[in-house]
């Protein structure tokens, strides 16, 4: 950050706003097309019913729940980077945390669609929330599914507050450089922020508390998601290993997605001064750590199944490797355990092409990990007569593709109307302008 001034930081970060180029518009078009296709598939499902999904007894959790867990996992890295690393005063977070937080919000918004899609009658989704009703009918708060509703909605609320509060000083900076209706809009969004001593004092205190609240949420939300599985008497799911295993997997996939999204962004916006190989290397190290935990967890799962001497449990785990879902298992192991190993060579985790390709491979692998857990366990339960092979239908694939369009559209809109790098916090990393420095020079 040497040689940068406060003014240069403001200009550099705000320069790309409001100026869409052809590539950007093309990406928006692709996102809209995917979203439209996903919307059409969802419409078909609402009209025809859940029969258009590929469910077949006893498999009634499939692509929708897989994709739900995938997006919730993606939503982990943002708050980890913004809150946990804030409390640890980690400097490398500053360049990447804003875009990561945005990714978190949009990923959780995407994830939130899937329970509603999965249950079919989306118009009854409000039954998930406790509200007084004439039948005095209440939710079962002992169910992990209800825990999940509260965990994900709390995570979304807290992450959104944390994200928006961080944005306020930067929105004020945009307000001060625009005019007309745009200025009025950003004035409203900035709540009249002026950066006074009083405002900064209470803001920083509150920001610390938000970070402190968000930190346990990072660990809790995917633990709760894992209990959706671990609390069930289903082979391959009923394990105390699941919470740490899921949390590590979520951070692994989230950090990989941050690399996937930020690398083209920082190159296109010419932000190498703010987001560069130093940041990507740290993200790659996070992936190496969590990927190692994940690989260890895969091994532990098999050891527990073997050592339990439970024929049903061991049957599911051997079926995952040599049964009909063996290809899913192979994809998972290659993408999550083997591919990231290349990052142990320092030059490989500093190479942009390798970083981006491996991060993409991890994203694919983490989707298949959830598919492996969900489909193979349900398809191979206690009664061999009921064993089946679940194949997702085109409607399920379409809705999943639509979720990427939905997520992509939100992210693309964000990067053109809000600063994707935190202006005020980048300024904190720069040595402040001092008279004594000028005199000495």
């Amino acid at each position, binding site marked *: 950050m040497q040689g940068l*001034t*406060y*003014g240069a930081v*403001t200009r550099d970060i*705000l*320069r790309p*706003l409001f100026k869409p180029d052809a590539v950007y518009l093309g990406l928006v078009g692709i996102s809209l097309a995917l979203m439209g296709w996903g919307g059409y598939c969802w419409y078909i499902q609402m009209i025809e019913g859940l029969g258009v999904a590929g469910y077949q007894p006893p498999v009634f959790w499939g692509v929708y729940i897989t994709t739900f867990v995938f997006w919730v996992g993606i939503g982990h890295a943002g708050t980890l980077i913004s809150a946990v690393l804030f409390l640890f005063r980690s400097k490398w977070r500053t360049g990447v945390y804003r875009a990561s937080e945005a990714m978190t919000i949009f990923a959780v918004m995407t994830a939130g669609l899937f329970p509603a899609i999965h249950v079919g009658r989306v118009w009854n989704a409000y039954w998930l929330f*406790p509200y007084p009703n004439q039948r*005095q009918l*209440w939710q*079962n*708060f*002992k169910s992990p599914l209800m*825990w999940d509703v*509260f965990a994900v909605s*709390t995570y979304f*609320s*807290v992450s959104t*507050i944390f994200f928006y*509060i961080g944005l306020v000083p930067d929105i*004020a*900076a*945009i*307000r*001060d*450089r*625009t005019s007309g209706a745009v200025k009025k809009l950003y*004035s409203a969004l900035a*709540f*009249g*922020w*002026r*950066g*006074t*001593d*009083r*405002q*900064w*004092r*209470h*803001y*920083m205190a*509150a920001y610390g*508390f*938000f970070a402190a*609240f968000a930190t*346990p*949420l990072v660990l*809790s939300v995917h633990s709760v998601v894992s209990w959706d599985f671990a609390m069930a008497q289903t082979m391959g799911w009923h394990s105390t290993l699941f919470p740490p295993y899921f949390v590590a997997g979520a951070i692994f996939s989230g950090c990989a997605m941050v690399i996937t999204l930020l690398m083209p962004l920082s190159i296109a916006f010419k932000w190498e001064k703010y987001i560069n190989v130093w940041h990507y290397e740290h993200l790659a190290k996070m992936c190496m750590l969590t990927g190692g935990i994940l690989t260890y967890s895969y091994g532990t799962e098999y050891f527990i199944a073997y050592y339990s001497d439970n024929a049903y449990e061991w049957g599911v785990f051997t079926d995952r490797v040599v049964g009909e879902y063996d290809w899913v298992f192979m994809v998972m192991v290659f993408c999550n355990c083997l591919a990231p190993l290349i990052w142990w060579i320092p030059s490989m985790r500093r190479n942009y092409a390798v970083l981006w390709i491996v991060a993409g491979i991890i994203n694919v692998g983490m989707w298949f990990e959830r598919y492996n857990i969900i489909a193979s366990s349900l398809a191979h339960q206690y009664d061999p007569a009921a064993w089946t092979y679940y194949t997702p239908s085109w409607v399920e694939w379409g809705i999943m593709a639509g979720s990427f369009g939905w997520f992509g559209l939100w992210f693309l809109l964000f990067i053109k109307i809000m600063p994707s790098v935190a*202006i*005020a*916090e980048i*300024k*904190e990393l720069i040595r*402040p*302008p*001092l*008279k*004594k420095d*000028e005199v000495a020079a």
Partner: protein
Amino acid sequence: MSALPKTTDEPVSNGTVKSVYAHLDCLVDAIDSLKKAGVRDFIVTAPLPRHEIEELIYEGRPSPVRWFTLGGAIFGGMFGFALCSFTHLNWGMIIPAGKPLVSIPAFLVITFESTVLWGCLSTLMGMMIFCRLPANDLQVEAQDPRFSDDVFGLVVNNLGRKQAVKVTEILGENGAIEVTNGYVRNADEVPPEPVPLEEMGFEPDEPNTAMLARIAIVLTVLIVAGIIGSSLYFQKSIGDELKAQGYSTTTRAVTPVNRPNQ
């Protein structure tokens, strides 16, 4: 994005001196000099948080936002647990295999989530109140767009004509790149009565933390009393109903031990 002007023609009120600093050390020196001169009613604006400024002005006093955080989190925890407990007690049809209706381990998840959510929401409320957001009525002198870019602002208020001259000198001596005395800029206008120094409070609208603490205690007591009262009511009403149906609630485990055929 438009470039910012080097100077601003925004008005400066009589009784106000506005200064602009390009260097942080100059700003800190100016604040220190103002405090030594007994001037206390001023606003500092900065494009980023700097601990030097906060330390100098607030002398290490912590922000009262923390009381909102604590109160919200305590309320949230109790609310979450109460929500689970009361809804399960209210709907007596849930008899989970002889297990207690109010199950502490199962309800801890919702309790935790509610603690975090309400703690966060109340922190947000506290921050908005103490930052006075939305703050669209902040005095115009502090609304210079350059203050969100690369310079620091120091706006001194409630000055008499002589005080304003003295403050202008202090700010200029400490390296301000721009000092505007409202009396000089608005030379044709009638000056307001100066406010005696002893009547100027130090950050006059600093919240009364003792009062906030008392409010928090009273609210907590009310909430606890409400929860205990409601609990007793529900226990009694549901318990009576269950007893009438032949169920036992003495061990908190609702088991059909008193069925006629057993």
